[in-house]
């Protein structure tokens, strides 16, 4: 249980517009080797920005502080040359929309090969062979022919497989997946998630999976970190959090997912929408939408407190929330 984490994020804070907008606020979490961590929240909760901050992939207007420890070094302070070695080599990232994330004017082979060229010592012939192997690995049939094709000649699911093949080219030990299945049909979603899990086992990678879909989390993740308005509000194993959510927001998210096989009941929905970055409420950011909110919630920001090893929550009324039970 006391394994050294593969990735350790400490006090990560990302601001935009000269510090006026805070997209990620004092976020800390760890990823263990071989583990799948689900980073969950509604749109605008800061989960994608968190991923991109880890890789320093922000527009010029974004500023990141904190620490991202990776193999004894801090990604946020390393040189650009070192960063290039980490990006795509040790840590790979896949994006939500493979149609826009793959370059439309380059054949798939070029897009895989440039990654191999950047991160391996393979010669030309070996890179071509490896590119075919990668296509096989992610389940794209007829690899030799399809490598010559362009992204628009692939279906949505196949495109996402191409992106995964590119991500795997540098033999990463950590895969950052930003909503990898959101743009896909449900049946294709399952195939892609299964592929990611299989690859995790086969290549012993860790995975951080950003999603707003708790069904995806339940099916794939070992642990979960729930984000709201740029902060992590609850973490724990998927089993613990689903069985006994301790934050009102987590409880609301779980209540909004339909479940097959159980008695029919009304779906809970969380009233309202997440606050825009320039109007985050005082106190707990969730308090205007929260059924459990009391005086302290409007005055102070709750900090993450450990309930048990590996299980923490940032909620003043966690006892009441826990007592209300899981809606699942």
């Amino acid at each position, binding site marked *: 249980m006391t394994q050294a984490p593969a990735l350790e994020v400490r006090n990560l804070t990302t601001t935009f517009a000269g510090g006026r907008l805070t997209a990620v606020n004092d976020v800390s979490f760890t990823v263990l080797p071989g583990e799948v961590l689900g980073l969950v929240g509604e749109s605008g909760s800061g989960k994608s920005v968190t991923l991109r901050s880890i890789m320093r992939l922000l527009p010029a207007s974004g500023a990141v502080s904190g620490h991202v420890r990776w193999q004894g070094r801090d990604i946020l302070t390393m040189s650009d040359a070192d960063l290039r070695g980490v990006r795509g080599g040790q840590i790979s990232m896949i994006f939500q*929309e493979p149609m826009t994330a793959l370059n439309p004017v380059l054949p798939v082979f070029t897009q895989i090969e440039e990654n191999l060229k950047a991160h391996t010592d393979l010669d030309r012939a070996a890179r071509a062979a490896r590119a075919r192997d990668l296509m096989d690995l992610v389940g794209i049939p007829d690899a030799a022919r399809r490598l010559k094709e362009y992204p628009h000649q692939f279906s949505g699911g196949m495109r996402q497989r191409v992106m995964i093949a590119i991500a795997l080219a540098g033999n990463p030990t950590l895969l950052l997946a930003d909503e990898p299945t959101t743009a896909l049909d449900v049946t294709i979603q399952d195939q892609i998630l299964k592929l990611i899990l299989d690859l995790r086992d086969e290549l012993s990678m860790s995975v951080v999976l950003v999603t707003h879909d708790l069904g995806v989390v339940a099916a794939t993740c070992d642990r979960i970190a729930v984000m709201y308005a740029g902060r992590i509000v609850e973490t724990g194993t998927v089993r613990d959090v689903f069985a006994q959510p301790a934050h009102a927001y987590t409880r609301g998210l779980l209540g909004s997912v339909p479940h097959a096989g159980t008695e029919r009941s009304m779906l809970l929905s969380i009233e309202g929408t997440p606050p825009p970055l320039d109007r985050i409420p005082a106190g707990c950011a969730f308090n205007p939408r929260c059924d459990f909110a009391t005086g302290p919630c409007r005055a102070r920001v709750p900090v993450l407190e450990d309930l048990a090893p590996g299980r923490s929550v940032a909620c003043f009324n966690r006892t009441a929330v826990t007592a209300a039970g899981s809606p699942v």
Partner: protein
Amino acid sequence: MHLASFIVRRLLQLIPTLLFILIVVFVLVRLLPGDPASAILGDRALDADVERINRELGLDRSLPVQFAVFAKSVATGNLGNSIHLKLPVAELIAARLPITILLTVMAALIAVLFAVPLAFVAALRRGRAADSVVRGAFQVGLSMPVFYLGLILLTVFGARLGWFPVGGYGDGFLDHLYHLFLPALTLALSLSAILMRNLRAAIIGVIDAEYVQFARAKGLRPRLILSRHVLRNALISTVALFGLSIGTLLGGAVITETVFAIPGAGRLMVDSIYGRDYPVVQGLTIALAVLVSLTFLLTDLVQAWLDPRVAR
């Protein structure tokens, strides 16, 4: 392959285009005020002489017949004889057009050499001093008329400083290049301003694209990201604009050749229009139109090469 059938299709499309050009040229020349017979013979010509000239030139026949004769001879490469110079038009064009083509190609190259690096500087330093300087300078270049700019360059670098000849075409290829440099520069400036603005906007549109972010996430070198992922995608629209600008460039060559006294097709065109030299005007217009059509074809091919989705 896709590309081969695309080229064939594109070549077939040239046929109706060329036919249309022939009709337009034929009609336009006949709509010009004045007629060749009085231009040749002067105001006090006798009616009999006018009739004789018209008969010699075939102008006494009906328009459809004139067009049929015209189309047939063009198709066989015979563009007739110049009324004034008494030379075959094809020969005249063969002598003069290459000069204009060389001038245009030089101008296009200079324009691209200016536009591409400066577009990158402006786009990558968007909103900062370098961006403002580049855009401001090009705004001036864009708003200045070609003949005025030509005269300034001619006065400063030709007459005052003596670095370049003030006119003419010179002897031998290198001397041609030397003589054509100032006129080409004159022509290039407004084109490079247009290209720079377009490419700058295109680069800004592409640089935040997801596939560029993905390329960064792959740990590629910035230079490779710019050349392979950014430039290639940004160029697609700029190449289209470049192709469309070639026609304008040829039009600008007419003025430039006049200012710099270059014996190119532009000068020939101006002289022939004044002299009502119908066969030369017709022949030149056709030659220039074919040239522009071929440029469009080339543009399409470059685009198809840049963007595989075009050739579908």
